[in-house]
């Protein structure tokens, strides 16, 4: 790769979203904005090779994209309305440095508008903010390219036709709309995190993109504690990436992971971001989940994990998001902190509500607690129930191995 090519690749990562965001604002046309941004990057490859890399690549790209837009609008028609658009696009004051960050924020909130279907919000965010092309997004979500292309077209049409505004929401709407943005980023991250092996690299890439966007959002909205909470949560989960999958592509449970493979830099960054957020004393579900992840991340092993703290945090989390799966996690933590009998009592109470009927982790958790209580035949029965309900291949392998250790050989 030549120096100029390297500079274009770097600029694509750093500047794509800024260029597209500004072009959408000045042209009001999402397709035109994307095309002009794309063309500007293509021109940079040649121009930077011959003229050298500009001091401010982002400014060069935005100016170039704007000139391309002006040319296109001029060529397309000479109607008065179009000429007015040209004048607006040419106005230098519309792209000064200070408005550019606001443009990215406008773009994030518009892509994640609740009037768009959830899958379209994710796709549009990956397209316009991360610069992934339609084929890459389709592969990441395992849908045909045509389906994904249509999803993106429909979303852009709805933004225009339904009058979805291109702006950061008013303060009274900001909390719920920020939560909507965070939900999109977390969904994107989890899609990537669910992917396990080398064949799933495109999906794994979603984790990096989600973290990158959360970083940008955190820079743009430093006062929002939950934004920091989500960034910390994703960093702390991601820190375990290298340790959670075996060479054969099998998921390794937390207790058996080689913790020396965890990323120390992501753990320390995650903890630092979380601590700063907690100091603002505006708690929320992402910060609580990040705190739980941090308890695991800083522990040397399962036995030396602060399970009482984790149990208390799960208790706190159920106050924010009442959810039987969170209750089950709390029971596991209590089982570790206060012994398997205490955990089993909570699991049994949860099972009695019927809220988790058919969910394989309920019998799997019961099985594990019974095993630790030295009740092997009951534990084996529960593992068999779990095996009848599990759908994920990696988890099935794990449960079968657990069952095998209980059965006399």
């Amino acid at each position, binding site marked *: 790769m030549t120096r100029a090519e390297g500079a274009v690749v770097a600029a694509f990562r750093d500047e794509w979203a800024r260029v597209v965001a500004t072009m959408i604002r000045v042209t009001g046309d999402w397709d035109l904005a994307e095309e002009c941004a794309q063309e500007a990057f293509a021109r940079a490859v040649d121009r930077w090779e011959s003229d050298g890399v500009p001091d401010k690549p982002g400014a060069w790209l935005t100016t170039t994209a704007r000139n391309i837009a002006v040319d296109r609008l001029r060529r397309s028609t000479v109607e008065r309305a179009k000429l007015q658009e040209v004048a607006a696009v040419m106005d230098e004051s519309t792209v000064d440095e200070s408005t550019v960050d606001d443009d990215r924020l406008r773009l994030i909130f518009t892509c994640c*508008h609740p009037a768009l279907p959830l899958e379209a919000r994710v796709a549009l965010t990956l397209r316009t903010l991360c610069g992934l092309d339609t084929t890459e997004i389709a592969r990441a979500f395992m849908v045909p390219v045509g389906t994904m292309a249509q999803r993106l077209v429909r979303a852009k049409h709805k933004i225009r036709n*339904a*009058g979805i*505004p291109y702006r950061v*929401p008013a303060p009274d*709407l900001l909390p719920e709309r920020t939560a909507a943005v965070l939900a999109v980023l977390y969904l994107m991250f989890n899609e990537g995190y669910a992917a396990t092996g080398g064949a799933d690299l495109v999906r794994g890439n979603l984790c990096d993109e989600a973290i990158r966007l959360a970083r940008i959002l955190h820079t743009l909205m430093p006062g929002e504690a939950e934004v920091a909470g989500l960034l910390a949560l994703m960093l702390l989960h991601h820190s375990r990436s290298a340790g959670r999958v075996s060479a054969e592509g099998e998921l390794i449970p937390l207790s058996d992971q080689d913790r020396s493979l965890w990323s120390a830099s992501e753990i320390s960054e995650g903890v630092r971001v979380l601590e700063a957020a907690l100091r603002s004393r505006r708690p929320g579900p992402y910060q609580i989940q990040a705190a739980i992840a941090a308890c695991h991340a800083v522990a040397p092993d399962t036995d030396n994990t602060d399970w009482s703290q984790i149990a208390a945090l799960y208790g706190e989390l159920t106050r924010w998001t009442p959810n039987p799966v969170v209750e089950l996690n709390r029971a596991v933590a209590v089982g570790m902190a206060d012994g398997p009998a205490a955990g089993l009592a909570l699991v049994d109470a949860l099972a009695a509500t019927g809220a988790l009927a058919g969910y394989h982790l309920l019998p799997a958790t019961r099985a594990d607690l019974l095993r630790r209580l030295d009740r092997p035949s009951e534990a084996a029965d529960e593992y068999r129930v779990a095996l009848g309900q599990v759908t994920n291949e990696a988890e099935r392998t794990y449960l079968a191995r657990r069952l095998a250790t209980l059965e006399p050989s």
Partner: protein
Amino acid sequence: MRYLFLICVEPGTTVTPEQANPGPWVDEMTERKVRVLGDRLRPDSDATTVRVRDAELLVSDGPFVETRELVGGFDVIDCDDLDEAIEIASKHPVATFGTIEIRPIWPMVR
């Protein structure tokens, strides 16, 4: 932008007249100059459907499509964008027990 609000209620929904009274909302939105017009609609049983097929006039009783929700009223709203339309809709009393469907009006080019 102009939007048509379809004020929908599921049949059998029981609310007090005070809960359903759109009066204060109408006053507020008229004052704000965002409400162009609107009214209640008589029920499906009073609807008449008209079609012309092969130059033949077909008139029938009732709505063309039976839906679960009944359109009980409509409003034409003229406001800045979808966020403002959502805010206006969220203040409509029916939003608390029925549904407000926001449809952007597609202006005819003549």
